[in-house]
């Protein structure tokens, strides 16, 4: 019984439910939101420490022994993702207090935010592939509702693409799960991994691997499946954009890491080339898309796509070092990308627009904001000693070790292009003076949607930005201990026997489960159930 692995899922559900109880009381909802986020950060830290010392923390829901019940398992990768999600969640909770319009709060912004967090946490912690699908859907439904809060035309148009493509991905995922169950007769990921080695290798395994790759590729916004992302991420309120940018695509990437290291590890040789070039094209198309844009959040949206390429590249190179680098890239990107979106929200608040051409002069006006942007943007581009440099450095080094020179060359060139986009934002927003024709009414005391003055709450927007910028700096400075954790993740993912043993108990009980391996599609998958003691 290890409660710390279930609490990160239960707490956001609980705080979401509590804030639903206070539907009419805005102050109470706001309080519950932030208190829930703080508690979530606490339990995530607890889980992280527990995982650091034990390696794996598992819990069988309802005490049904694996593989019959649903397993919750945290290995180092899950624990790190949960911790980062909790940090982003808390930053968003505070930031939302200042930026969320009264109308949005009235229609359940905070409960939805917590539901989204619960979905993300569940996806990170579950050890059951159908359960993973369920958490994906929880996350998606919450994100659908958050995306259209406000109901403007652009939001509707973006949401139709977002909803359609994400549902399509879900159905592909579900189909693949169904076929996988028909093949191995179990849904527990560790058990699937065991039986996958036993199953006869027809072409079906490759087909399934590709289906999972497409489904998670859509969710992670990888080339050529990313078009829903830049079409929708710049439309909702900025806090929602930032939350999506920090969390949602990374869940897809996480699922890829999990499935391809645990279940389809033998098919990696076959898929590696596809994934490698997919990653390279993702990086290039994302960064080129960003170069053409002059809207703050659209540039950032395209850069999400570009950065996803680095993470998938880490997986595609498929060495422990490369996987460590990929996870490093995820961690770094969660912090930095969220922060850039938060900064775009502040500049919007100050100057009333997201169009770069109409902005300017913020370096003189808000030097500290400029510093925070500078740190995050240069971290994104991979300038030492910030967090992005180390992520890129590890991936490049791993790539050189396996002699994937072309792809590594592309990755480095994309870093340069990222710098170009970031310098563009810097020049337009911070450096050049405010254009004459932009009469920002009363820049220092803007009004919210409902006309109330928003100046006093500016510190609530600054606080998360500063903390996250500091985080990026700290990840860079403390790169060595973090790299140590990342190497642990790389080893754990590369050697899935530890994961399998942690879920199924000692190796002996795993043998019991394997007494009757089901064969072929037509055989009933009931074997697993019949052996239940």
């Amino acid at each position, binding site marked *: 019984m290890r409660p710390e692995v279930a609490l990160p899922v239960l707490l956001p559900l609980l705080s979401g439910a509590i804030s639903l109880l206070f539907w009419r009381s805005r102050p109470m909802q706001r309080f519950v939101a932030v208190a829930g986020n703080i508690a979530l950060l606490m339990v995530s830290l607890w889980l992280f420490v527990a995982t650091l010392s034990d390696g794996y923390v598992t819990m069988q829901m309802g005490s049904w022994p694996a593989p019959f019940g649903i397993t919750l398992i945290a290995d180092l990768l899950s624990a790190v993702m949960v911790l980062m999600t909790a940090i982003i969640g808390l930053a968003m909770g505070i930031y939302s207090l200042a930026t969320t319009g009264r109308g949005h709060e009235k229609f359940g912004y905070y409960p939805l935010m917590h539901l989204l967090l619960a979905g993300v946490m569940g996806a990170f912690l579950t050890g059951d592939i159908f359960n993973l*699908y*369920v958490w994906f859907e929880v996350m998606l439904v919450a994100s659908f509702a958050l995306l259209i809060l406000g109901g403007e035309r652009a939001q509707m148009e973006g949401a139709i693409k977002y*909803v359609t493509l994400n549902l399509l991905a*879900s159905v592909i995922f579900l*189909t693949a799960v169904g076929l996988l169950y028909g093949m191995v007769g179990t849904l527990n990921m560790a058990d699937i991994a065991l039986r996958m080695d036993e199953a006869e290798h027809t072409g079906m395994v490759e087909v399934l691997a590709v289906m999972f790759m497409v489904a998670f590729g859509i969710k992670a916004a990888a080339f050529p499946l990313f078009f829903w992302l830049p079409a929708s991420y710049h439309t909702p309120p900025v806090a929602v954009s930032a939350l999506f940018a920090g969390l949602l695509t990374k869940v897809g990437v996480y699922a890829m890491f999990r499935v391809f290291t645990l279940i389809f590890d033998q098919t990696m040789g076959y898929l590696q080339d596809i994934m490698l070039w997919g990653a390279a094209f993702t990086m290039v198309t994302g960064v080129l898309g960003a170069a053409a844009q002059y809207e703050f959040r659209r540039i950032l949206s395209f850069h999400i796509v570009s950065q996803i390429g680095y993470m998938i590249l880490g997986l595609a190179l498929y060495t422990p070092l490369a996987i460590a680098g990929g996870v490093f890239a995820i961690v770094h990107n969660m912090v930095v990308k969220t922060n850039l979106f938060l900064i775009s929200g502040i500049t919007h608040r100050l100057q009333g627009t997201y169009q770069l051409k109409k902005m300017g002069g913020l370096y003189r006006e808000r030097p500290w904001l400029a510093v925070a942007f500078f740190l995050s943007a240069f971290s994104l581009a991979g300038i030492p000693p910030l967090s992005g440099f180390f992520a890129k450095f590890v991936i490049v080094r791993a790539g050189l070790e396996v002699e994937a020179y072309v792809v590594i060359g592309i990755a480095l060139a994309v870093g340069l292009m990222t710098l170009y986009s970031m310098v563009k934002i810097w020049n337009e927003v911070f450096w050049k003076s405010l254009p004459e024709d932009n009469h920002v009414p009363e820049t220092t005391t803007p009004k919210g949607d409902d006309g109330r003055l928003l100046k006093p709450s500016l510190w609530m927007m600054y606080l998360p930005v500063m903390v996250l910028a500091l985080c990026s700096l700290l990840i860079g400075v403390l790169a060595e201990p973090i790299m140590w954790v990342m190497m642990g993740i790389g080893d754990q993912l590369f050697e899935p026997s530890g994961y399998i043993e942690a879920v199924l108990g000692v190796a002996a009980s795993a043998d019991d489960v394997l007494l009757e391996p089901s064969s072929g599609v037509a055989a009933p998958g*009931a074997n697993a159930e019949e052996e239940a003691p």
Partner: protein
Amino acid sequence: MEPLMAVAIGLLYATAIFMMLRRSIVKLVIGLMLLSNAANLLIFTTAGMTRGAPPLIPEGMMQPPSGVADPLPQAVVLTAIVIAFGVLAFAVVLIRRAYEVVKADDLDKMKDTDT
């Protein structure tokens, strides 16, 4: 039974994709509905179809006799149906709102956010 189901599922997938590629947003949602139904039927079929053998444990035994139907895919399909129902309810409301805002049942008129 299985070959028939396989053909039916294939037809459902094909129809769903065809509907989703139309310009009308209503047909888009119809496509999504068919798609989720196809996936549910697929899970139901791949797990093996067994007739007339409910997975009940006879009194005094610790496990059901062999050859009973597999209850797990049915539970899975049930969950998937509920999820699909909720999500599609949302999608229907979404296209209604989108129709109100855009005043057209046409995806080609919803390209403002693309460029």
